[in-house]
């Protein structure tokens, strides 16, 4: 079923606050094999000019994957989730995510289109501190493959 163009621009209420822990950053860094000490050692991070340990560049997915679920739960978004694959991903960083950040994620539908029977849905999740400082944006394009 084609997605309604009127969904474009729809924004959802901000997520609950996600508090970034040093342990979670270290766990994520280990899982991707990133051994730079700025992910684990606060002194090394400070020596590199950061206030605390910083997260690897794709860490934001920990918050944004969950936040973007509000779109799939929207009854007006008729996307066959069983046929969905991740088509594209973009991260734009204003600064690295760091331990101690208290972040909220706000999801917006950026684009919908249908090509050759496949529905494509692009969502942008803007991540900011509780105080309103923009930290990063994660844009995901999901493809629901048509029945061929």
């Amino acid at each position: 079923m084609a997605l309604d163009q009127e969904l474009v621009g729809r924004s959802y209420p901000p997520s609950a606050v996600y508090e970034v822990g040093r342990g979670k950053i270290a766990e994520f860094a280990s899982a991707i094999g990133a051994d730079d000490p700025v992910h684990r050692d606060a002194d090394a991070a400070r020596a590199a000019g950061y206030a605390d340990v910083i997260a690897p560049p794709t860490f934001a997915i920990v918050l944004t994957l969950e936040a973007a679920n509000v779109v799939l739960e929207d009854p007006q978004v008729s996307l066959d989730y069983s046929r969905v694959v991740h088509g594209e991903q973009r991260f734009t960083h204003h600064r690295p995510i760091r331990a101690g950040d208290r972040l909220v994620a706000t999801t917006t539908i950026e684009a919908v289109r249908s090509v050759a029977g496949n529905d494509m849905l692009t969502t942008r999740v803007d991540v900011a501190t509780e105080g309103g400082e923009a930290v990063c944006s994660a844009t995901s394009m999901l493809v629901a493959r048509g029945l061929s």
Partner: protein
Amino acid sequence: MSRLSVADVEVGTELPERVFPVTRADLVRYAGASGDFNPIHWNERVATEVGLPGVIAHGMFTMALASRVVTDWAGDPGALVEYHVRFGRPVLVPDDGVGGEVTVRGRVAALLDGDRARVDLTVTSHGDKVLSLARAIVALA
């Protein structure tokens, strides 16, 4: 490490090629760390039921491995300010004691205003391109 200087970079500069082995254990660890527990990344039965040849790596895991080539080269994980990929073929990770692999090559494609460089990445698994339009913008010192 300290951040790479723009003086040390020119269009055409090649980043050191890296080959990352990928095992089922790596996928389980990534699932836990990222919160993406889709069973196609750890359960052979579910993966084949949905038409895949077998368990595949999370696209986001491949994207993360490729980012290491850029951040290790740049000398600072905070240097990567913009990063985009399109997911193409999946990375198969067989449970055969060896697993799969991801090979990442990178090349500086452009120098941008504000001491930034665009790095274009070529990401393959056993010769098949697994990411396309894989591009990173790096803020240099």
